[in-house]
């Protein structure tokens, strides 16, 4: 480890040493000492300790962050610092389950209209308008309809849904119930990636509490509405983040995506009409009911409504999860002391990825920093909003090595059923490894671009595109750097670890 790296890490740990933060963490631990109904106390406490540490990242700055004129308080993250907000009593004392009661006084059509009006776009990365997706679900069905929550958060660089599940699970459950009420859905599965054991415990605990209070089960709130929620664990497959791969995984099979159409709204899990929504999308629903679709739409820009969670990571001063309106600029998120706090001393911004590794890489030109974070503005600068979790990279970052590392990721995660994705990802990784190791040839750059063209659009699901888009963007945006690797027969940047990137080894 280089001294510089050690220094960075030390800096990163500073907030945890801060006495005030420590106080908060200890306070939280004390309050958490009381065992929850699920899980053993010891594990719960140690995991909470860990959590207080990471949640503390979102606690800097005095009180709720005033993100912009459009948003003077927080919504999605407002319970993050309220002790034990994951318990139903605390959640209700802070206004929880009021939106559900209001929704149950409305009919389904009205709710769908409000959600359409809200301009809520799918928060998992694809950005499909939520209300429109909901309207595809057939009203009448001979079989029970399903809601499946995509909590298989695995897009590299993305870490927001985990916070929603761990720190405000009841908000999520309330959102599921409102969706179910509006759409006539009988059962819900929350498909959580298997590694997020703590999030699953928090969700299960919250679900158990909701059953006890009569919010789940039969004849909810005396309205003749029956609804059940189950937590379903994934088992370590990125492809289950793709909605039909997820459905296959939920059915107990390999997560190999299905051909569309039919879309899940018509034929989904167990051959029944199914809505698949991201965690944050569902957690946003109670606010739309509470304040109205127009209010939600107003807190954003054209076609992109509402408050949103942004995850900031990389060598910046304040990495973490932050809430801000849709359409906030990248510059404000990166530079404002209320958010990222700028690059760390001695680190100069070289590029950023807007919303997970599947997005095209972006250079820090002024117009790329002043762009508003919305699906259309990001498309206009040649990238995409994705999950809205931004990864910042400094000038020490080798773009060839990063592209190689990501190609290995996609090769490892390809489900294998489409040849262009299965073979193309491995081939791209080998060519990129060769360039990084100094074995590259100039014609490799065209070869890479040609491979990308042959993968993109030729696979069942979007994972193929997710290889082509970033690889092409690294080659085209940083052509000079690729050429320097080839002419100089090696990498001019500092290595990752002693052995360099272990990109050649297949990650477990």
């Amino acid at each position, binding site marked *: 480890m280089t001294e510089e790296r*050690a220094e960075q890490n030390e800096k990163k740990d500073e907030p945890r040493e801060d006495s005030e933060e420590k106080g908060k963490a200890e306070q939280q631990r004390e309050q958490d000492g009381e065992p929850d109904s699920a899980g053993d106390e010891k594990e719960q406490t140690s995991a909470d300790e860990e959590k207080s540490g990471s949640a503390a990242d979102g606690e800097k700055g005095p009180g709720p962050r005033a993100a912009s004129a459009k948003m003077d308080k927080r919504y999605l993250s407002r319970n993050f610092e309220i002790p034990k907000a994951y318990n139903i009593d605390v959640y209700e004392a802070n206004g929880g389950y009021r939106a559900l009661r209001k929704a149950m006084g409305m009919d389904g059509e009205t709710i769908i209209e409000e959600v359409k009006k809200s301009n809520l776009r799918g928060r998992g990365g694809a950005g499909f308008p939520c209300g429109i997706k909901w309207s595809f679900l057939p009203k009448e069905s001979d079989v029970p309809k399903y809601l499946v929550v995509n909590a298989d958060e695995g897009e590299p660089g*993305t870490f927001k849904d985990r916070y929603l599940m761990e720190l405000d699970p009841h908000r999520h459950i309330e959102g599921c119930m409102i969706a179910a009420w509006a759409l006539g859905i009988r059962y819900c599965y929350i498909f959580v990636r298997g590694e997020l054991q703590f999030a699953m415990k928090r969700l299960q605990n919250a679900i158990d509490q909701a059953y006890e209070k009569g919010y789940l089960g039969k004849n909810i709130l005396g309205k003749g509405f029956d609804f059940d929620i189950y937590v*379903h664990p*994934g088992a370590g497959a990125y492809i289950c983040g793709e909605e039909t791969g997820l459905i296959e995984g939920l059915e107990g099979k390999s997560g190999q995506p299905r051909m569309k159409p039919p879309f899940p709204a018509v034929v989904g899990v167990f051959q029944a009409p199914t809505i698949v929504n991201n965690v944050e999308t569902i957690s946003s629903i109670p606010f739309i009911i509470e304040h109205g679709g127009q209010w939600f739409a107003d807190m954003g820009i054209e076609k992109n409504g509402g408050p949103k969670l942004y*995850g900031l*990571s990389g060598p910046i001063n304040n990495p973490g999860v932050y809430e801000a309106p849709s359409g906030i600029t990248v510059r404000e998120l990166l530079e404002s002391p209320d958010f990222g706090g700028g690059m760390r001393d001695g680190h100069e911004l070289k590029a950023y990825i807007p919303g997970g590794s599947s997005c095209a890489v972006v250079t820090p030109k002024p117009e790329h920093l002043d762009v508003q974070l919305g699906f259309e503005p990001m498309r206009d600068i040649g990238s995409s909003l994705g999950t809205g979790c931004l990864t910042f990279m400094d000038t020490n970052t080798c773009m060839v090595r990063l592209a190689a590392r990501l190609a290995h990721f996609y090769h*490892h995660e390809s489900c294998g059923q489409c040849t262009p994705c299965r073979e193309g990802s491995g081939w791209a990784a080998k060519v990129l490894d060769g360039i990084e190791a100094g074995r590259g040839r100039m014609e490799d750059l065209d070869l890479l671009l040609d491979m990308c063209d042959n993968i993109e659009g030729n696979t069942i699901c979007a994972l193929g595109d997710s290889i082509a888009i970033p690889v092409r963007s690294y080659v085209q945006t940083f052509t000079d750097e690729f050429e320097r690797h080839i002419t100089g027969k090696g990498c001019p940047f500092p290595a990752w670890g002693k052995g360099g990137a272990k990109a050649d080894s297949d990650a477990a």
Partner: protein
Amino acid sequence: MAVEFSEIAEAEFQELLSRYPNTLAAMLPALHLAQREFGWISVEVMDYVAEKLDVHPTRVLQAATFYTMYNKQPPGKCHIQVCTTLTCALMGGYELMDHLEEKLGIQVGETTPDGNFTLTEVECLASCGTAPMFQVSYSDGESDYFENLTPERVDEVLEELNEKLTDLPDPRKMHS
């Protein structure tokens, strides 16, 4: 000795079945449960799960080999999984791996001869704001995230893990 769920695990298994309209859908949670009970997913365990779910054994083989969280070999009591994907690579994930290899005296992908630690490289664990990090999966089925790691902090974590070892079952001995 044929594998068989304990009474508690059997009750959990029955509860799992009640969640789904068919038994095949209980595959992933059932395999997690089996891994907790039997330490790892051997062919014998796969056959047992197939019998319990009343599905053809190839169904179980398919799931157990497609999903990376199921160990097809016995792991150590503490399975350390280091993320090196994107932010973790940028923030020192590989340095973390080097440090662990040195401290544990093994290479990535290996288990210490005493069966206490397995070290693997994994893909993004959704903890990018607290990079670099690793997850530890214990042989009793629990797991923890360790975040914002430095070599000094890793040394502390290893000490904490060493203290836990006596309470953890040895996956190699959890079934024949």
